């Protein structure tokens, strides 16, 4: 039982990373109907930025928030410069452009920072925390807490601020929003900025566990895909729930199903993606796509 609870909490911790990255994917999908295949690599690059700031002697949380700001600006620039010209192009074109971004970020990181794995500090204490006689890693609990705080902020932002309302309107009905005086193009760019920020949170939180290297986010991204697919690409809440479920399932399957262990972890994600797409393509919380013929 003790192992079970520990594994569930560990699962929630990794799940919160998947949730943050899945939320980033969903935000961009909602706003621009694009799945950003470069999301993981953008997060990885932001983590390197944070590493640079930390190495320059900045205190942890200052570097953390500075990185979020840089990621936010970077996301906006990418939308304006790279995505905007192909906004109305066929899906294939947009997919190819995001794949191009993926490749560029991956190689830039390798070029600037080399492919050697780097340790990354955690802001949380090293000593494990005991709750009711069960031992938990402090970083795992901190990771969950940080993600929850970010989620709460974003929910408040979208629910209670005029800008959040404008962004939701622009995503749902661009034409009417434009008539109502909302600058739709900029709202979409803001969406990319926010998504890049969530990605940065995911990257910074997962780096102490996985170690920082240019290919760090490959596995995380496939799980974030699985999370977004499970929750539904059209539902931010779904992305979060999906992320947590996928994290817990991954850990429990790794612990209890012997022939899968840790060696076939990515195959579990593939199975989740294909399974969900076959049984319920809209995911748990997404709305089904209805198309006019």
């Amino acid at each position, binding site marked *: 039982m003790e192992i079970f609870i520990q594994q569930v909490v560990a699962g929630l911790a990794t799940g919160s990373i998947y949730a943050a990255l899945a939320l980033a994917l969903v935000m961009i999908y909602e706003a621009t109907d694009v799945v950003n295949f470069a999301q993981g690599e953008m997060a990885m690059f932001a983590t390197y930025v944070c590493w640079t700031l930390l190495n320059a002697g900045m205190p942890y949380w200052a570097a953390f928030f500075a990185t979020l700001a840089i990621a936010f600006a970077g996301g906006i620039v990418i939308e304006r410069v790279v995505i905007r010209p192909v906004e109305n192009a066929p899906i*294939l074109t947009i*997919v190819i*452009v995001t794949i191009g971004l993926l*490749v*560029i970020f991956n190689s830039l990181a390798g070029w600037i920072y080399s492919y050697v794995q780097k340790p990354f500090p955690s802001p949380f204490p090293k000593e494990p925390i005991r709750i009711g006689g069960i031992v938990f890693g402090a970083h795992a609990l901190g990771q969950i807490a940080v993600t929850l705080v970010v989620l709460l902020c974003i929910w408040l932002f979208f629910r209670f601020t005029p800008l959040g309302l404008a962004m939701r309107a622009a995503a749902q009905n661009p034409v009417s929003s434009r008539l109502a005086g909302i600058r739709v193009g900029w709202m979409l760019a803001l969406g990319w900025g926010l998504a890049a920020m969530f990605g940065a949170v995911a990257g910074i939180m997962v780096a102490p566990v996985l170690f920082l290297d240019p290919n760090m986010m490959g596995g995380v991204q496939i799980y974030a895909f699985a999370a977004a697919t499970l929750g539904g690409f059209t539902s931010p809440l779904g992305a979060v729930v999906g992320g947590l479920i996928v994290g817990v399932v991954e850990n429990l399957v790794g612990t209890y199903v012997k022939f899968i262990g840790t060696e*076939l972890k990515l195959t579990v994600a593939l199975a989740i993606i*294909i399974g969900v797409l076959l049984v319920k393509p809209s995911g748990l919380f997404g709305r089904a796509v209805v198309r006019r013929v």
Partner: protein
Amino acid sequence: MAPRVRLAVVLAALALACVLPFFLSGFRLFQFTQVWIYAIAILGLNMLTGFNGQISLGHGAFYAIGGYTAAILLSHFGVPYGWTIPAAALVCFVAGFLFGLPALRLEGLYLALATLSLALALPQVLKYFEHWTGGSMGLVLAKPEAPFGLPLDPDQWLYYVALAVLALLFWLAANLLGGRVGRAIVAIRDNPIAAQAMGIHTALYKSLTFGVSSAYTGVAGALSAIAIAYVSPDSFSVFLSITLLIGSVIGGLASIQGAIYGAFFIQFVPNWAQEISKAAPWAIFGVFLILFTYFMPHGIAGALRWLQARMAKARGAKPVS
């Protein structure tokens, strides 16, 4: 181009390719062998993504399946290497067809997602079945000698094998895509509903295209396993799939000859770029990928077609096609 001129150009190119081994040796020749192999793989991807409109970001997975089919047949069962190529085609056809069945329900982005996940997950699976695949160590193979006492070394022989397979598969693809089946495949891409209304069995054609496309890429994988005489899971990472996609986009997605231009690009550009930095090839790949989608969406093949049309117009002739 008039058909007779086109035939002449193709034959001239083929003749040039045939005499190449007498001027190049060792590593240079191997690079050209690899170009023909990549061209076959990219042609498979072009059929699926370019002609049929199904996005695959994971064709490296079928390349890997083809390569491992050949390697396992060679090292565990001692099958003559000539038979491993059709075997790889068959295995990959079935694998592609089966993957294509559920993929029928996935459109655009979702298919891209599923195929990318396939490419990400496959190396782990290959490592897992260690008994057959040799785990992370991979399988080491022996290079085949030229038969019938031909005065060729193994590298030269493999070059001709790859070139012959390339010529055969391109001829087949040109016939397949130029005829009734090809028009059905393109119609499904352009307007699936209208295609269905015209009596095209969309589901069957889509999964068959997936199967044939995988078979092409699988044959390329098998040839590459034999030519390199080694397979390992890490040579089939997700970046292989992306490399094939890049070749496809650069050469021209919905084009048969484009596959060859794309293959030259992905084989030789990294070699030059490597001299700048280890990471440079990928940075250049990424930049080219984005620039091509902006400015040359039909790739090199499209640019050549445009040039021909311009030249024909300048000569006052009526442009053909």
